[in-house]
């Protein structure tokens, strides 16, 4: 692997790790606030799995000389993160400690859209030319299977439920669509990633995602949404919102106070 390919590989693994990391955090903020107790158990279990996936990717980066996994999670500045902006957005107004007015429809839509893309991305990654990444993907996909099933069920049931539910779900679909393009892109060094055989062409992955989502839209009566956009900026280029900066401050509070603490 030449130097250019290696840096594209590192860039890709940051995207994978950071996507799971920040969405797992957003999920963990729902603890105790989910619609019912069963969902509280399920969602926290899913968030724990996803945080595990992020840690696994950070360990791959550690092996590639990027520094210690714990530090990668806790000490990087927001501009060093490569997650898509949609995944860092707050769950709603307030915080989990103070007046949380979280949007469940948005959470279901965001997680469902992401779970479908994560599945497609993992299916591509398990054939990656970088063997440690392929191994990680094969392992993660066995857990992701249950996550996708979970969010698919929620999406289907809510969007075909009462008028109120449908209205909220459609508004959440519109909101997520404006930035899902940011999840679907592999960023500036994508052609090097493909050349190195680390992952397939981003257009191919995007097409697979659209096919699967459109099929669900037809089945559940959601109108077509056109091309997914990147309205709030491109996280793959290190562009982020204040939401990420705030989340990282909370997340790293303990580690920053005492780096000897585990996570």
């Amino acid at each position, binding site marked *: 692997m030449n130097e250019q390919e290696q840096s594209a590989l590192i860039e890709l693994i940051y995207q994978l790790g950071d996507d799971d990391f920040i969405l797992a955090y957003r999920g963990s903020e729902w603890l105790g606030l989910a619609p019912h107790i*069963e969902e509280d*158990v*399920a969602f926290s279990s899913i968030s724990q799995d996803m945080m*595990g996936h992020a840690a696994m990717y950070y360990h791959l980066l550690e092996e590639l000389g990027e520094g210690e996994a714990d530090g990668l999670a806790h000490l990087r500045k927001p501009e060093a993160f490569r997650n898509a902006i949609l995944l860092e957005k707050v769950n709603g107004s307030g915080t989990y400690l103070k007046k949380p007015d979280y949007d469940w429809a948005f959470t279901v839509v965001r997680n469902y859209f992401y779970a479908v893309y994560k599945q497609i991305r993992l299916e591509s990654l398990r054939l990656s030319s970088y063997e440690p990444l392929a191994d990680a993907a*094969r392992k993660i996909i*066995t857990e992701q*299977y*249950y996550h996708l*099933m979970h969010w698919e069920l929620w999406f289907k049931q809510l969007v075909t439920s009462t008028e109120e539910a449908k209205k909220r779900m459609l508004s959440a679909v519109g909101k997520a669509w404006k930035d899902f393009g940011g999840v679907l892109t592999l960023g500036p060094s994508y052609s090097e990633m493909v050349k190195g055989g680390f992952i397939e062409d981003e257009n191919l992955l995007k097409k697979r995602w659209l096919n699967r989502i459109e099929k669900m839209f037809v089945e559940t009566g959601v109108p077509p949404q056109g091309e997914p956009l990147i309205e709030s900026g491109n996280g793959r280029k290190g562009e982020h919102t204040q939401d990420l900066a705030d989340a990282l401050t909370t997340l790293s509070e303990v580690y920053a106070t005492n780096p000897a603490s585990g996570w």
Partner: protein
Amino acid sequence: MEAVLQSMNLKEKVLLALKEVTDPEISSISILDLGMVEDVEATDGSVVIKALPTFVGCPALHIIERDIKKAASEVDGVKEVKVDFVFSPSWTTDRITEEGKIRLKEFGIAPPPANHVMGEPWSIDCPYCGSSYVTMENIFGPTACRSILYCKSCKNPFEAMKPVADMN
């Protein structure tokens, strides 16, 4: 016993010691019966144990690593122990031994189905009365590897180990 121990090589002695290392969250089952130990290499007192995590984000992994190290270092002739968590091969529920399945039941956890194919329905028997008249309450449970069920025959809630099969 002394004679048997003497005739064993270092690797066999370490494996025997690992029989005593149990899952911190399911204390009736050893990590060997869970199928978590992939390989033990022992050369001149230096031991490397390759272990497979069950679920990637399992918070018990650090405890398991510590317990493995402790158990292996107490074996006569062992000078240093290293634990490597590896992801290839992938841990699947088919790695759980027959003995392991009995131990899971003892803890009130229904063992996973054998030769499960992901995506296909699976049937789970109540670990208390053996009935298959059960309902799935929540596919996710108190730990990453478990689901929550209810037995309609003996009217007990119980847990089951989620099937994890290779999907490649």
